[in-house]
């Protein structure tokens, strides 16, 4: 069964995360000791700097700092944000949920649009429709998020339309309608980018299947094209599309950084930008690791789904 592969997949995922944590730590400590100066400013007295370094543990050797950070994360202690003077854990947890809402709604919308369009484009390969879809996806991939966001604001958030708020966030518990209203534009922006990407992947995956020998066999059995598509082609194309979808979650996390900033949406992306701009090292490290974990987990889910759909993986 596919589950036989599971321990290995999980192990490799954990290895990835372990390596990632080292990389994160090394990157953020390229300029040693600067964090204290960044917090207190250039004019701080040496004594104050030393005191802060001691409080943040910056005076300890790097491996020890690393062990302290990772050990904390593994036991649920995400450390203290140096600029907010609050435990990082709760902040991250809240922002994480907000970002996930954004990401999952986006993925759902993008999949609902992109998969049918990608399949249709592949089936009608070479037609005008295919050309239009392909061109649209080229353009969609190329338009930067930070152009798309302002354009959407211009169209829908400022007069004359002003249909949706241009920025901010309302908790779901406070006002479900407000929550949705604030989600519309960021989701729309992210969906454009993701749809463009996913559409092309679906199209090329479906084309591979349609050009396969077994689809030829199905046609030369005398099956009508409808059955060839539904019974023989889609089933095989879906497996790879699913894998792509999970990979796209990672792709999406990159766009989220910009989109959240544009729409002032309080998620992980905005948090990491804040932390980077203010050199809040613990916060940067924690958020980067969380983003990496999301990606690894999504990949794991995709692997399992793929294995369950593809009998070659499920029953070797």
């Amino acid at each position: 069964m596919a589950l036989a592969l599971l321990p290995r997949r999980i192990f490799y995922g954990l290895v990835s995360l372990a390596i990632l944590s080292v990389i994160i730590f090394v990157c953020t400590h390229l300029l040693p000791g600067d964090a204290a100066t960044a917090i207190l400013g250039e004019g701080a007295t040496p004594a104050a700097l030393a005191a802060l370094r001691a409080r943040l543990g910056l005076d300890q050797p790097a491996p020890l700092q690393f062990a302290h950070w990772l050990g904390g994360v593994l036991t649920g202690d995400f450390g203290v944000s140096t600029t907010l003077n609050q435990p990082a854990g709760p902040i991250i947890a809240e922002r994480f949920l907000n970002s996930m809402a954004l990401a999952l709604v986006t993925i759902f919308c993008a999949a609902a649009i992109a998969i049918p369009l990608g399949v249709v484009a592949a089936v009608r390969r070479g037609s005008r429709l295919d050309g239009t879809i392909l061109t649209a996806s080229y353009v969609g991939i190329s338009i930067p998020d930070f152009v798309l966001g302002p354009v959407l604001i211009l169209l829908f958030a400022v007069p004359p339309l002003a249909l949706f708020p241009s920025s901010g966030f309302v908790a779901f518990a406070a006002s479900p309608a407000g929550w949705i209203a604030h989600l519309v534009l960021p989701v729309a922006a992210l969906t454009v980018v993701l749809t463009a990407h996913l559409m092309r992947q679906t199209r090329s995956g479906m084309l591979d299947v349609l050009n396969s020998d077994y689809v030829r066999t199905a046609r030369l059995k005398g099956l009508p094209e409808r059955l060839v598509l539904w019974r023989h082609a889609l089933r095989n194309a879906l497996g790879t599309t699913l894998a792509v979808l999970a990979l796209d979650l990672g792709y999406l996390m990159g766009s989220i950084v910009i989109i959240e900033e544009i729409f002032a949406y309080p998620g992980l992306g905005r948090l990491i930008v804040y932390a980077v701009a203010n050199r809040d090292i613990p916060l940067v490290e924690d958020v980067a690791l969380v983003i990496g974990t999301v990606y690894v987990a999504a990949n794991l889910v995709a692997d399992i789904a793929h294995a369950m759909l593809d009998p070659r993986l499920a029953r070797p």
Partner: protein
Amino acid sequence: MPEPLLEIDGLSISFRVGGRRMPALAEFSLAIHAGEVVGLVGESGSGKSTALFAVMNYLPENAVVERGSIRYRGIDLLSADRATLDGLRGRRLAMVYQDPGTALNPAIIAGDQIAEVLRRHLGFDEAGARQRTKELLRLVEIEDPDRVYRSYPHQLSGGMRQRVMIAMALSCEPDLLLMDEPTTALDVIVQAHVLDLVRSLQRKLRSAILFVSHNLGAVAAIAHRIGVLYAGELMELGPAVRILGKSRNPYTLGLLAAVPRIAGREAVQGIPGAASRDPQRFGRCVFAERCPSAEAICLAERPRLLAVPPDAAQRSRCHFANDPKIDRAWSQGAAAPTPSAQPRSAGADLLLEVAGLSVEYRQGFRLFARPALRALRNVSFRLPRERVLAIVGESGSGKSTLARAILRLEPGASGRVLFEGADVFALDAAGLRRFRRKAQIVFQNPTSSLNPQRSVFELVARPLALAAVPRREQRDRVRAVLAAVGLGDLYLDRYPRQLSGGEKQRVALARAFVTEPLLVILDEPTTALDVSVQAAVLELLAKEKERLRCAYLFISHDLAVVRQIADEVLVLRHGTVQESGPIEPLFEAPANAYTRALIAAVPSFSTDRATGGSPR
């Protein structure tokens, strides 16, 4: 004469390639009657598969039907709409493909893929279709139909998959079965079983078969009538016995002379040159520039399919079809027979000794390491100087691993390889360099073995450059060795993409011979080549061995080829030696059961006693 089942009439097909039209098939006509088995034989680029898929009206998108028609019981297949075709495909016209590994849907269990056809065409319900499918699986001699029914294609062996394909094709008892190289992707023994099965099923079900193959032996084993295609032209058509025994076409005769026979060491004779791809070739005889009896008219006029006496059953596309001179055409240029095998002489000077050679592949990484895969177990043999030892085996036997291990290219190798008495695995850097100059290798796929970015000169001169041969001398030696393999100076600046398969393999051989090695390992050197070209390369190999006085380690799955060149044979299966010894006794009276099966499986046919449809 009754109305034919299928009538292909004047079919011309070309392919649009980069804005040009490349003709692939010229005015091809063929009629197939009910219950008849017609074999189409041809080398690569002959148009045989194009003709086959045209019958199904399933040609690549860039194919253009220029002229002609294909009629099945009066229905014009080329202009039929999809609904009409859907009614015929799988029901009246069914197909078996070259590679059963990719032709079956990997996501659907084998049985359902057959049942689907029954339900579509014969109106079976689910349970009935399942029942009937299992009967069909039994019909194709599958012993446990229940298990096979439930299996996904990847869980079945190649031979099993092809049986499933055949069961699927026969499920609606079609009038015509189209088989596209159905045995080519299979190992020799499985090939023989599948051919036997098809023959016996054909007797039982009386379907007509159009059987397409490059393998003359396979076609001879099954066909009542044979058509010979060359470069898109039907060269000869007639009853199998007459095509094999009394051909009246120089190309067919050349092809027959080029096929190595397992029965004994006869001179195989290659056809010089390569098939013409000239788009204008159909204005003349397409074979003219390779034909030994060509005259001016052959280059000026396209020959018609002339009836060969006593009746019109056999027809040959040759201006001289009824001129006795073509019988002598190939005997004039016949090479001297390959020297007969040399028995092992006791005191022969030893070149290579392999003792207890094993190769293991470690799989996976430490924590999840799977048990090591043993590709080769305890192989030992000795190769004296100037001899040819053939390593014979099916796919997965470890024969290519053996080649790589001897050249110290397999990190997982253990055991001993002694070359001129020195342990290859223990050589220091200088010793290794000397060894690499004296031991060369030639691979199966000439396209893959030549770096496409390098000219012929660069390719052949590189081993000399490594051996620090001065630049001026390199040029002379490259010229000399190219001449020896039959390539002139104009090849020096060509690139691999400008060469035919046969020419590429000659370049690869030149590269191996240029350092005047003592040992050349030939890893399936003729497998990727057409029969006529293979014969020419075999002639060349025999000649060069005499000139350079080197030894060959000849790796092959093809026993008939081995018979033509080897002094001794070693049979390998699943990485272990089954049997070894001098070739004559081993082929005449094999001691090992596997060797016996292997030899018996080679489709053999004789030009004298062919009985058409049931030789052997």
